[in-house]
């Protein structure tokens, strides 16, 4: 499980763990039924306090994203997938909000942003096609 902890931006570490596990589920890199590493293993891997990992797992469990099974161990729950959809929307919404805020500071109208999104999409598509034809 690839998680990266950074102390520079001030976001509490347990929230970084929660956000990144949600992201891994939303992006399909952790699927329903996948087992999360044991608390002490993840703590040792990320070099963070085990209580911090425990808190992140606890909050993910309360949110129904993961579940504990009888034989210890924490797994991505069945509900993971509808929740993953919601999470995808949430992650993208946050990015869009930031984009809109910045555009408003610069005095750029929403219609122009929508046009710009189309332009960027076309541009990315054409570079992809170029690289796929000339490897």
């Amino acid at each position, binding site marked *: 499980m690839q998680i990266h902890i950074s*102390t520079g931006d*001030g976001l509490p570490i347990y929230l970084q763990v929660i956000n990144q596990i949600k992201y891994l589920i939303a992006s399909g890199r952790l699927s329903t039924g996948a087992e999360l590493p044991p608390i002490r293993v993840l703590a040792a891997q990320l070099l963070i*306090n085990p209580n911090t990992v425990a808190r992140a797992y606890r909050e993910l469990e309360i949110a129904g994203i993961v579940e504990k099974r009888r034989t210890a161990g924490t797994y991505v729950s069945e509900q993971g997938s509808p929740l993953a959809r919601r999470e995808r929307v949430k992650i993208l919404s946050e990015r869009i909000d930031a984009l809109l805020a910045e555009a408003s500071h610069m005095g750029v109208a929403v219609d122009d942003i929508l046009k710009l999104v189309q332009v960027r999409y076309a541009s990315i598509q054409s570079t992809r096609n170029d690289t796929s034809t000339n490897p």
Partner: protein
Amino acid sequence: MFDAYPSAAPPIVDIRRVSRTFGDKPALDDVSLVVPQGGVFGLIGGNGAGKTTLIKHVLGMLKAQQGSVRIFGLDPVQNPVGTLGRIGYLSEERDLPDWMRVGELMRYTQAFFPNWDEVYAEELRDAFDLNRKSYIKTLSRGQRARAGLLVALAHRPELLVLDEPSSGLDPVVRRDILGAIIRTIADEGRTVLFSSHLLDEVERVADRVAIIHQGRILLTSSMEDIKDQHRRVTLRFQQPHEQPPALVGSLTSTGAGHEWTYVCSGEHVQLRSAAEAMGATVIDDAALSLDEIFVSRIPAKEAR
């Protein structure tokens, strides 16, 4: 097992109103500090803040001139056997007998600790890539720190005390030290007290912190609370201001004209309503790293 923190057990370290002077220079001024069982306690402060002096009181190397020190409920000066035998200690200088070989250091240290775990000691020696036959004086700075860490850990102490363990070490050895701290508390009930000025390390591993400055404790708090209660807020005022308008709970402020940025302590909701009452809008509101919180807490002219 991780849910039981902070535990109801009596504190491992209980320091009450300790003062200490060296000559006429105050080193500790009315310091009280409680380290509960089963977590990582980070003691943070600049050079000369009093961290090492405080740790020497914990180890019974200094006697409190005023106030009381209890470790596991015992006075470490009166009862060194009952306390030191249960503490693993790594000093900043990592003072080890230069003339010994690694193997000799291990056997020598083992003699002091009935709980010495030979299998674990050997595991650590292997993991740290230390040769039994190497003389301590020939070890690199990093290997010397690892040797010090080995003898501090191998008797599985109830309390691990590390004084600036990372200072002057490369990132690989620093990871070993953080890993050792984490493994120590992952074993139920054990406690770590460490001092550091590398605040990103403290933020990663500590669940409680105390800020010490000029011999006084400025703040003791759980890491959770200290992070929750400090924010950097940028306000935009309707009118330009020459000086930052006073905001409840603000520790520092920078800015000019319409926009001022404050580092504040206090509850989220209160801050927002205070800002609204001043006719200002919150245009940015962000959590702070422990590093930024520390700097905001130390009076500006004295910060290093």
